């Protein structure tokens, strides 16, 4: 009995949450001149700028991602998905990786799509391969890399090969050794039998709020690391090749750059060898702080704890092999 009352009470209060939220926002606008002085610290301001820009920059890609995931849920029959991404990893994983090559997204958009594909019956290995390939080897990223490294087309080729290999290898490894219990699949956001547009909007809304919340976690962490670890510290290790590879791989994880912008940063890290910079470009779209947060949110913490180290190791190795071969 008392349980019910408590829930009732909570519900009554809960009804005013949207109004309270709006009030808080209005109060923030009105109070801004009074509290502006509290936030003068250069560290806090720099953190805020980087935090806001990572969030804003990821927003359109996230929206594109959830619109696609909503559309897939609402308009594509599960039977078709299961047929297109069958549970035969030798076929499904490479084709899903290739499918990623035509999807012009940032890494944050492909996570909710992979989540929905899996919960709609696609083989997890194939969905994960798509998730790794889409942000790394799509045409926009390839073009950005070509612009950032003018006169070095082998860099574009190396990036494509290395990232494609990461998607395929991780997908195959997952299909061989992965366990279903490691994945916590996203639940249906809208009950079965609803009108298709409601399913579309409901799924997109749910996936956006979910992934968006985790994106904020990742952006806040990445911004903090950018502010607290000065880039000048990183460049001092450039002379030792092995150390340089490890440091740039770590930097790719910590900076959490958009895959469409990381080539320009890599180009400016010219103290480092091309192979070390290739490692930076291959690791970044596959595993970074923001992505780990998003994946933990979408597939569960148990998944992220296994998937992130696996991807990291495969990405570094793949980039090194391709780097020695092509560059």
């Amino acid at each position, binding site marked *: 009995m008392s349980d019910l009352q408590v*829930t009732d009470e909570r*519900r009554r209060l809960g*009804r005013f*949450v*949207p109004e309270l*939220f709006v009030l*808080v*926002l209005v109060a*923030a606008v009105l*109070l*801004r001149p009074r*509290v*502006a002085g509290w*936030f003068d610290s*250069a560290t806090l301001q*720099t953190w*805020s*700028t*980087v*935090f806001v*820009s*990572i969030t*804003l*920059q990821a*927003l*359109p890609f*996230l*929206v*594109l991602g959830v*619109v696609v995931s909503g559309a897939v849920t609402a308009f594509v029959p599960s039977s078709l998905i299961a047929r297109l991404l069958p549970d035969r990893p030798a076929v499904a994983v490479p084709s899903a990786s290739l499918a990623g090559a035509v999807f012009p997204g940032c890494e944050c958009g492909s996570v909710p799509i992979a989540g929905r594909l899996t919960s709609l019956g696609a083989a997890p290995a194939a969905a994960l391969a798509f998730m790794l390939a889409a942000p790394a080897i799509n045409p926009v990223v390839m073009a950005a890399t070509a612009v*950032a*490294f003018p*006169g070095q087309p082998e860099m574009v080729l190396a990036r494509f090969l290395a990232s494609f290999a990461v998607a395929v290898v991780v997908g195959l490894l997952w299909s061989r050794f992965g366990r279903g219990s490691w994945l916590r699949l996203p639940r249906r*956001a809208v009950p079965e039998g609803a009108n298709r547009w409601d399913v579309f*909007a409901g799924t997109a*809304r*749910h996936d956006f*709020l979910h992934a*968006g*919340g985790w994106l*904020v*976690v990742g*952006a806040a962490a990445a*911004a903090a690391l*950018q*502010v607290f670890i*000065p*880039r*000048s510290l990183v460049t001092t290790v450039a002379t030792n090749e092995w150390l340089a590879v490890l440091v740039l791989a770590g930097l790719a994880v910590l900076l959490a750059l*958009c895959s*469409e*912008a*990381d*080539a*320009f*940063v890599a*180009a*400016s890290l*010219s*103290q480092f060898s091309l192979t070390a910079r290739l490692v930076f470009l291959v690791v970044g779209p596959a595993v970074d702080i923001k992505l780990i947060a998003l994946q933990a949110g979408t597939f569960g913490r148990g998944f992220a704890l296994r998937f992130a180290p696996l991807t990291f190791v495969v990405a570094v190795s793949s980039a090194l092999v391709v780097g020695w071969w092509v560059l």
Partner: protein
Amino acid sequence: MDRRTESVLLLAVGAVGVRFGFSDAALAYLKPSFQPILLIAGVVLVLLGGHGLLRDSARPGSPGGGEHGDHDDHGGPGVAWLLAVPLLVLLLIAPPALGSFAAGRQGPVASVSDSGFVELPAAREGAVDLGLRDFVTRALQDPERSLDGVPVRVVGFVMPDESGDGYLLSRFTVACCAADATAYTTRVVGDGERPADTWVEVTGRWEPGDGDVPVLEADTVTVVPAPEEPYEY
């Protein structure tokens, strides 16, 4: 979080997207060509939020999705509240464009590309207008030494420096957003000291030398208002 809250949150985030799609305030965080897609994303979010609110009011007896109650709880994950954090940061802190603090933490850029440089643009009022990135990369690595003896005009913000003459003049180049900003920095001599983060227009000449920060010998220095586009692209 119930459906109504979800929808209001989406409307708020969408509104920020729409506002930054139009306003120059976004240029502290993003490059201008990013604004249209931010605008589209904002409109989509507003539509999704609006759809949620309409659906909810269309269903009688379920104010705030109460009918679904706890079953619907997974529909609005608690982590979604974090989306309010960037909104509050924007409203309360309104973070400015990156300045001397961030530039000081980056250290000098070495070479940028091995490709050649195009011809210098024509001079205007006796000096060539150059972006700071263009100036710094030409000074550091142009084999043709295209800057030699040429009067140039650059705009940047001041970064005081104890370790040498004059001060450092810096400006960020952004590929996508402020998170990937790279600072290009030159030393300005012949102008004494200036307070940090003052925007100045310096007309002067490149002083050849080695070291990873080029030196600009200033003829005239004017304090200018912070440009609408704080970064180079």
